[in-house]
């Protein structure tokens, strides 16, 4: 065991794993995080806490992680490379570990142009793959500058993201390979809204044996409306939504119910796909739907490990 988190135990035991996501609020109201933690507790192994997602200032992911721990929920701390240099990131990793956080997910981060401070300077001292490597170096007892730690190294289960829907398509597999090589233990993909493309990506992943080197959790986002699906297809960089999803939502009398049905069918399909270790359910601003999806997709109750 690298960190001994529930997430690590579940993935390493070979059980189909479920992770969720909680977006911290644009305020210091920690009760929002606490509310979601209480609502989702027990439905997922761990919960990603986004790090100022879409470059909008929010309650910090590590502080939100502390609230989750208080609620006996396991956090998965997201760290983006946009806002902090290697000094600040390593300091935050030590701090997060000191408070008992064990899962950390490394991301490049959305460009600040999309957020509420578009005139900010970005950092990108290191990129997401270099960040994985830094965390791997830290858990082996050294800092990024190769200086040996004099005390116990942080225990971290390292995560990364993969986007099979971005380009160049073939290189997306190489990029996952680089992340695994840098030390990532698990990977959560961008939400799958084009299963055909995702399957083609997984074929390439399996051809390189990557699914045996890194645990892959497929991203699931239930669609609430046709408008949302079209927006993701047309305006979100690196996102694909297949025509059949748009058509199904378009024809449905109850669009939300159909969105949930699609998510459940996707999970059932992914459960059978070779190399898929679990699902990462991202229902941002629709967190309350996660229990129903998990229940109906046969993901409840969660096994004990």
């Amino acid at each position, binding site marked *: 065991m690298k960190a001994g988190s529930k997430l690590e135990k579940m993935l390493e035991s070979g059980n189909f794993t479920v992770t969720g996501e909680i977006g911290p609020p644009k305020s210091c109201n920690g009760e929002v995080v606490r509310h979601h933690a209480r609502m989702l507790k027990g439905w997922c192994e761990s919960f990603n806490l986004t790090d100022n997602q879409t470059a909008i200032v929010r309650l910090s992911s590590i502080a939100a992680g502390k609230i989750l721990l208080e609620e006996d929920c396991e956090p998965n701390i997201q760290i983006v490379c946009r806002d902090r240099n290697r000094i600040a990131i390593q300091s935050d990793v030590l701090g997060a570990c000191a408070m008992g956080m064990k899962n950390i997910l490394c991301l490049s981060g959305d*460009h600040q*142009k999309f957020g509420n401070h578009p005139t900010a300077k970005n950092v990108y001292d290191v*990129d*997401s793959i270099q960040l994985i490597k830094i965390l791997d170096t830290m858990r082996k007892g050294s800092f990024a500058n190769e200086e040996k730690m004099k005390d116990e190294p942080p225990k971290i289960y390292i995560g990364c993201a993969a986007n099979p829907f*971005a*380009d160049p398509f073939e*290189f997306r597999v190489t*990029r996952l390979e680089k992340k695994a090589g840098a030390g990532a233990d698990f990977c959560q993909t961008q939400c799958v809204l084009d299963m055909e493309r995702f399957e083609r990506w997984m074929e390439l992943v399996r051809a390189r044996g990557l699914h045996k080197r890194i645990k892959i959790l497929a991203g699931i986002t239930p669609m609430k409306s046709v408008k949302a699906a079209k927006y993701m297809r047309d305006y979100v960089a690196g996102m694909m939504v297949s025509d059949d999803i748009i058509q199904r939502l378009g024809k449905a009398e109850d669009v939300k119910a159909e969105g949930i049905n699609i998510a459940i069918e996707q999970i059932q399909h992914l459960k059978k796909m070779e190399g898929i270790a679990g699902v990462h359910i991202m229902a941002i601003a629709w967190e309350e739907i996660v229990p129903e999806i998990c229940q109906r997709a046969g993901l409840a109750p969660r096994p004990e490990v």
Partner: protein
Amino acid sequence: MIIAERKPIDEILGFLVKYRKVLVLGCGGCVTVCLAGGEKEAGILGSQLAMASRKEGRPLEVVQKTVERQCDFEYLAGIRHLVKEVDAVLSLACGIGIQTCNEAFRDKMTWPGVNTRFLGVNLNVGEWAERCQACGQCVLDRTGGICPVARCSKSIFNGPCGGSQGGKCEVSPDTDCAWALIYDRLTQLGEVDSLRDIMGIKDWSHSRDGGPRKLVREDLELESGK
């Protein structure tokens, strides 16, 4: 070359409101090539300033001159007599030229007439694009001759990030994804497998992050007999 763009006329007029006689100083270097601050642009700006100030009832006497290069103290020494006769200088050179003037002409303020934009290339008539950030430690040997520091919106070394689609950057559909360009170029050269290697963390101390930079070449110092 250094790409610059002239500041708006109102901003420039604001700088010069307290003066009666100014020197509009063009530069024969980069700003001449990128049509922002050469002899022609100095002439146009000079006339605009004279007209606008007359209209406002505070006529400004404008002297014009363009030197070979404002970033060279030698060329500035040759116009000292002109600077002596005016209240202030308005430089149309890049930020380097403007600062060199301020160092050379200590008793007068040299105002900036342009915004220095970036180090780049002329693509089409009226279109320039950034190519270098002078990070001090060139990586073009590893990236197919395409710079990720200057041309990737996140300056990442193991791209492309998840926002690259159809060869474009997430920041704008008008911006090429540098890593898509690098991938295509290395594929074309049969070297794409080199991208499987992880590029390590960069030593930014050679960049601006190490503090203001200075280069001393002892070989040249010795040669000059210093």
